[in-house]
């Protein structure tokens, strides 16, 4: 695979050889580790007894959300410069005159960024395991959370990639991808809350059921889905599973959206098909 993917090999080489990579990994672990251990320490000072499972569950949930937020920062950050960065460093044109196809370039850059993110996620596994040892969370939930991270990471990376192909400047691309990521992470649930409130109106008795849009927005919100994996119920009284299990709605929707973004990016990268913008 590496033999047939020069861009991937080069990207991995550049990425993992750089000091920046180690630094990101270090800071990432420091933030997450400091967060968990600090929280545990505070808890321990308060009660000075062994954790009970419900506390452990709480820590696990906070740890999971913290990791999701960090992923929301790191992943789009990694891909948002992948094409625009080549453009800025004036290396893109030469790349496009080789026999590499735009789709291949996008694919390789995607894999190399995701490989690094997967390294970050994997590096936090021990932390999760420590919390897991105190009970309150099942191993299957742990795997669910990590599967959820992979899907979310794919989406965030694809968003960054699309912005990177669309915008000439890495700065604008990065800000836009963070904007979109923030909308996915927080905007969707605010929008759901808004629609929910408006749809209920002031009439009594309140109507039964919630609009489909609310159900949908809740199902595609990463924070809500993550909390539901950890055993929370859905908000706004939406149904538990709509057509498909909630986690499958999330997975299918974002895999499709991510893939469409990548296909679109490949098309835009083709210099002879690029529409003028």
């Amino acid at each position, binding site marked *: 695979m590496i*033999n047939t993917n020069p861009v991937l*090999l*080069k990207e991995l080489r550049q990425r993992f050889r750089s000091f920046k990579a180690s630094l990101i990994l270090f800071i990432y672990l420091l933030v997450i580790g400091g967060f968990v251990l600090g929280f545990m320490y505070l808890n321990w000072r308060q009660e000075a007894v062994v954790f009970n499972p419900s506390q452990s569950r709480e820590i696990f949930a906070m740890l999971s959300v913290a990791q999701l937020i960090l992923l929301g920062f790191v992943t789009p950050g990694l891909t948002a410069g992948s094409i625009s960065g080549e453009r800025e*460093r004036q290396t893109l044109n*030469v790349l496009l005159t080789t026999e590499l196809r735009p789709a291949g370039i996008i694919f390789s850059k995607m894999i190399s960024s995701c490989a690094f993110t997967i390294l970050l996620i994997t590096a936090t596994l021990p932390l999760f395991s420590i919390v897991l040892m105190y009970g309150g969370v099942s191993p299957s939930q742990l795997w669910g959370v990590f599967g959820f991270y992979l899907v979310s990471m794919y989406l965030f990376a694809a968003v960054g990639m699309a912005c990177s192909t669309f915008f000439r400047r890495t700065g604008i691309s990065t800000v836009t991808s963070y904007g979109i990521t923030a909308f996915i992470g927080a905007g969707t649930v605010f929008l759901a809350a808004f629609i929910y409130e408006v749809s209920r109106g002031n009439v009594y008795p309140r109507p039964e059921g919630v609009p489909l849009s609310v159900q949908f927005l809740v199902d595609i919100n990463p924070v809500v889905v993550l909390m539901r994996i950890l055993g929370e119920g859905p908000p706004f009284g939406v149904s538990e599973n709509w057509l498909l299990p909630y986690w499958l709605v999330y997975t299918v929707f974002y895999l499709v959206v991510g893939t469409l973004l990548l296909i679109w990016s490949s098309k835009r990268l083709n210099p*002879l098909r690029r529409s003028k913008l």
Partner: protein
Amino acid sequence: MIEINGLSKSFGKVEALKDLTLTIPSGQVYGLIGPNGAGKTTAMSILATLQTAGGGSAMVNGLNVITEPAKVRRMIGYMPDFFGVYDGLTAQEYLSFFASAYHIPENKHHQLVNDLLELVNLQEKHDSYVDNLSRGMKQRLALARCLVHDPQVLILDEPASGLDPRARAEVKEIVRQLKNMGKTVLISSHILPELSEICDQVGILKNGSLVASGPVSEITNGGQNARVISIEVENGLPEMIEHINGYPGVIKVNQTNTGARLIFKGEQKAQGALLKELVQEGYPVLQFAVQSGSLEDAFMAVTGEGKSND
């Protein structure tokens, strides 16, 4: 073989190329000369399949660059006017990366990279990081990079610009070797002398059109056809310029500090006729001389640029 036919390209209101037509036979080195903004880069990047054309066609070895870009890419080596190199890669890894990008089998890379580095005289930089190389070395490395897939046609956009004289000579030497290898080379520059020695033909581009084209000897005033004539008159310079503008054989007239310079194309007799005309019309001609200058003079005269200092 490169054939450009009626090529045009606009960016908004700017017409970067206007009906550009030129043919470069296989194995020839063609110099495209023009001031900044003349359209050299635009023409070359269309040939390099990086831009669509507004009209007309461009073919490389009989393949249309717009409709068959993948096949064209296999045949050309392109060096842009401005380019960067990747940081964190050694010269050997850099070339090997591009070799893979052209699907050259891994087991051939070692020999290929060594040969290329030798060609551009960078053997000792085999394991140096490319971002630490000097500008001249990067330029030579980029030339090596153009050659990884042994393309028949090379498109080199101002490969010598911004280099010191020594590095420029090295680049020129490499182009000379490419010519000996039988490659077809399209090379551009905004200054002419550096190309006059290595090119079989040159074309002078101005505002997107070719204003002169032909063998180097023909463009330079030493040739039988086009030459630069400088004329000085005691008075009545503007009227004189007006008068000879459009006269048979006069391609272009420019006013200079002391008189007029014109590009003249035609036989010796026609040149004599022009002088006779001036005298008969009563212009007090002080000097009427064929310039024995360089190609650059012809270029400057044609494009109407002041002396360029690179």
